[in-house]
């Protein structure tokens, strides 16, 4: 068997694996002192890997030429789109980390651990494999590589109890979800006799018996945990709150993209012949996520917990695109993912930039009172992000909801769309509360510290993307998303 074409297809992953291993060696000898240059090197490696994706993204990639290693991996336009997003999000998470870990916000250690960039790179490799998996084996490998790195990342502040708690919770519940997923996979294997997506799909055609149906449900439940969709969302607020903020920013973006993309691939490529079986599950999950994500956030005082609920709420809208179960819906979902990554990254960066004069991070609504007077630039940026998350035009967040609901209505799911969009108004309540606290309340009198250039750059970039100027991106964005969605449906 000639492996050269296969290796060529996974060149970005190879680059990242090489970079990760090299960084591991640097970490072993250089120690924590080397952490900052390592983060820069890791970001450069991710950027390089992203650069390798450009030709494929530009030309579109479908067909048998995208299969690697005898069909274990499939590097089509869909995988490329998801990977590009994942790499961008990971670069963001690396950019904001050094300033955070060396400040008082990181507790008593005040040092960035050399493992951080290494773990981010390995988690990214795992996600890369997840989104290009074409076999349940490679799917699980990628998923676990990502998850194990993520558990450690959540607990990376070793002397901070909350961080440890977050890591432990994430690990225990994550292991449970992996177990559920594995159980579902084993059921599917037992009933269809294969682990590759094509084999399982072939085995699932015709009328669905109870056995494989259980397999489908268990697989979906395991994946729902990974994307933190209701009713498997309980871990999200705790982990988001406890994990160090740069890690939270990472969790809220890259693994979400990977897990959503993976779910989309599984439901369309593996369960594509059984749309009726999973569509109602996804519809329920989507609606429940929108409603519970919105209701749960209302009482929150902690900003990170609030953003955790906001991400659950957003996952609901993303799943709305999935529930439509056609190509337009998948494309809308990808557009939403891109905009969601920009919005979440931006909001977490803004939170990271809000520190008092001792360097401790702002955590609650009480801390950010009157922010528009004390730190106007950050307050205005956060205002944009919040209105954008609420989906108010002319910000780009509206466009993401626009495409998803358009796909929903065009597919004839009008009542479903109407309920979902009415529920989105509940979400608007707490987003405008954010604005109210920053703009309408009197300043809390807390002195705020300085922020570094990397943060400003990321904040400015994400704010620019979600500003009305971002609409100029939409033609090329929807073009890319259409290509990616088309490649997903080519197999069907």
């Amino acid at each position, binding site marked *: 068997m000639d492996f050269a074409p296969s290796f060529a297809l996974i060149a970005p992953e190879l680059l990242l694996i090489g970079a990760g291993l090299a960084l591991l060696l640097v970490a072993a000898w250089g120690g924590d002192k080397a952490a900052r240059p390592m983060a820069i090197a890791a970001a450069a490696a991710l950027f390089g890997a992203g650069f390798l994706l450009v030709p494929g993204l530009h030309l579109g990639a479908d067909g048998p030429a995208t299969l690697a290693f005898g069909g274990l991996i499939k590097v089509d336009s869909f995988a490329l789109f998801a990977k590009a997003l994942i790499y961008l999000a990971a670069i963001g998470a690396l950019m904001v980390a050094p300033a955070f870990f060396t400040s008082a916000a990181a507790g008593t250690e005040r040092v960035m651990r050399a493992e951080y960039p290494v773990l981010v790179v390995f988690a990214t490799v795992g996600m890369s494999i997840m989104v290009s998996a074409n076999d349940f084996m490679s799917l699980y490998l990628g998923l676990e590589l990502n998850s194990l790195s993520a558990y450690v990342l959540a607990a990376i502040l070793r002397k901070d109890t909350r961080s440890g708690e977050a890591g432990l919770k994430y690990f225990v519940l994550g292991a449970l979800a992996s177990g559920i997923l594995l159980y579902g996979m084993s059921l599917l294997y037992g009933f269809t006799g294969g682990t590759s997506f094509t084999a399982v799909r072939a085995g699932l055609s015709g009328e669905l018996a109870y056995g494989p149906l259980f397999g489908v449900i268990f697989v979906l439940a395991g994946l729902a945990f990974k994307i933190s969709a209701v009713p498997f969302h309980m871990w999200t607020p705790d982990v988001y709150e406890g994990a160090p903020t740069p890690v939270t920013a990472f969790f809220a973006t890259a693994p979400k993209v990977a897990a959503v993309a993976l779910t989309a691939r599984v439901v369309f490529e593996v369960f594509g012949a059984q749309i009726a079986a999973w569509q109602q599950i996804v519809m329920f999950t989507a609606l429940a996520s929108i409603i519970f994500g919105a209701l749960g956030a209302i009482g929150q005082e902690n900003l990170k917990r609030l953003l955790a609920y906001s991400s659950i709420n957003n996952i609901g809208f993303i799943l709305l695109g999935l529930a439509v179960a056609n190509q337009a819906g998948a494309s809308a979902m990808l557009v939403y993912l891109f905009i969601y990554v920009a919005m979440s990254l931006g909001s977490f960066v803004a939170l990271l930039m809000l520190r008092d004069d001792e360097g401790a991070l702002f955590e609650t609504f009480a801390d950010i009172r009157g922010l*528009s007077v004390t730190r106007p630039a950050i307050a205005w940026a956060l205002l944009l992000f919040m*209105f954008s998350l609420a989906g*108010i*035009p*002319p910000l780009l967040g*509206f*466009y993401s909801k*626009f*495409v998803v*609901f*358009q796909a*929903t*209505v*065009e597919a004839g799911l*009008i009542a479903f*769309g*109407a309920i979902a*969009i*009415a529920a*989105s*108004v509940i979400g*608007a*309540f707490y987003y*405008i509360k954010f*604005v*109210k606290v920053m*703009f*309408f309340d009197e300043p809390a009198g807390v002195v705020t510290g300085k922020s570094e250039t990397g943060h400003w750059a990321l904040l400015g970039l994400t704010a620019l993307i979600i500003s009305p100027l971002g*609409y*100029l991106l*939409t*033609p090329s*964005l*929807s*073009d890319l998303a259409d290509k990616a969605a088309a490649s997903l449906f080519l197999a069907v």
Partner: protein
Amino acid sequence: MEGLPILSLMMLVPLAGALACLFAGANAARWIALGATLVTFALGIVLWSNYEIGGAQWQFTEKADLFAGFSYALGIDGIALLLIMLSVFLMPVCILASWDSIEKRVGEYMAAFLFMEVLMIGTFAAQDLFLFYVFFEAGLIPMYLIIGVWGGDNRIYASYKFFLYTLLGSVLMLIAMFWMVAEAGTSDIPTLMQYDFPAEAQTWLWLAFFASFAVKVPMWPLHTWLPDAHVQAPTAGSVILAGVLLKLGGYGFIRFSLPMFPEASAQFAWLVFVLSMVAVVYTSLVALVQADMKKLIAYSSVAHMAIVTVGLFAFNVQGLEGAMIIMLSHGLVSGALFLCVGVIYDRLHTREIARYGGLAINMPYYALFFLLFTMASIGLPGTSGFVGEFLALAGIYQTSSLVALISTTGIILGAAYMLYLYRRVAFGGQVNEDAAAMSDITAREWVMMAPIAAAVMWMGVYPESFLAPMRADIAVLDARLAAAAPASDAQLAPGTPRAEAANAVTHDSAAEEGAH
């Protein structure tokens, strides 16, 4: 003027001004904002003078495919032209009204108003369904900030209520828009205005649009956000809210609900009539007992807008024209009344009617302006209010005499609460010393009031200037509605016309008499 994208330019000027204001100091921001709004107003005059009456239905059209899913398409007809003129005319007045009364965060305040202006012009000029929605909905952000940051004591409650009410109304409309675009295959508004949707779908679409516009207008019982928002907003915020934002609802009916869903509009005409009749009587009575001036005028707005909706759903030319004129007139008059409240609020910092009295003695010019606007609000002949209300009620009389009868009580009740307000504020003895010590209006306030007063008189004495640009558009709309118009209850039975005039002298018989 050929080729100059004047509508885009009219949006670009305030946009640039807004961005400049964000970074400018307090005083510079005031002048930038005034300059930007005046330039936009000047452009508006150029727009009006170049508008060809009797020309193409859609003029000054621009189109660019900038976005995926919808296009940047602008263009106006006579209806949009007049509403744009109203917006750009009120804007400099709003800036002047906030000149001294806004002291904190002036740059951001002026920027919010200029953004508002961009969005209002955009809403009236949009020719793409989704572009319209973007502008329509985006206005929530600046208005939320204006009420929340610079509003009165209970501003937070009012701003939440305003935001969530309006948002809930409009998201359902968005779903309907998706359906329409999927059905018709285009998001171009002029095309959709001629598209015949299936009658049973129209019912749902009409209701979804109604949810949005009824909140905006606002129609009873969805009006409760309005008194709160008005009372808490700063003066200029109230002016723009009453002057233009409420008109978005009426504009929505005239641009979307009526031409796109004529059958459903006819089907639901009685729903609109009943809600409007309740609004006319109920909110007028509520206005009568208000102790807060702003609240009184806010309730009077609900009553006036109810006559607008009655006129719109009369399905005839008089009703439509009357509704449009009331919208323009109410935009000017209620805006001016809020300014009048603002003038004395700036001096005494209370909106309570009982704290004033006898202002005609120490503020004669103020009392004069206030009287003019009071009369215009009542609908005295010679003012703009008369023309609009007369036409609208004449229109509805052709459709239903009952609705006409009940709506007309609005004029009587309007006279009651406005005159009662005026008597308590301007006439009588000077019961409060501090109110008696207030100085008359300043030069700045003259500059604010005089143009509005002139416009009110102009519209009252020679409404043809305002009726002419939209006549053709109303005729097109009327023709579109004609097939669906509900049956009239007037039961007009035309008799056989007499052969000669009633006072004609019967020469034949006279001749016969003479012959005898």
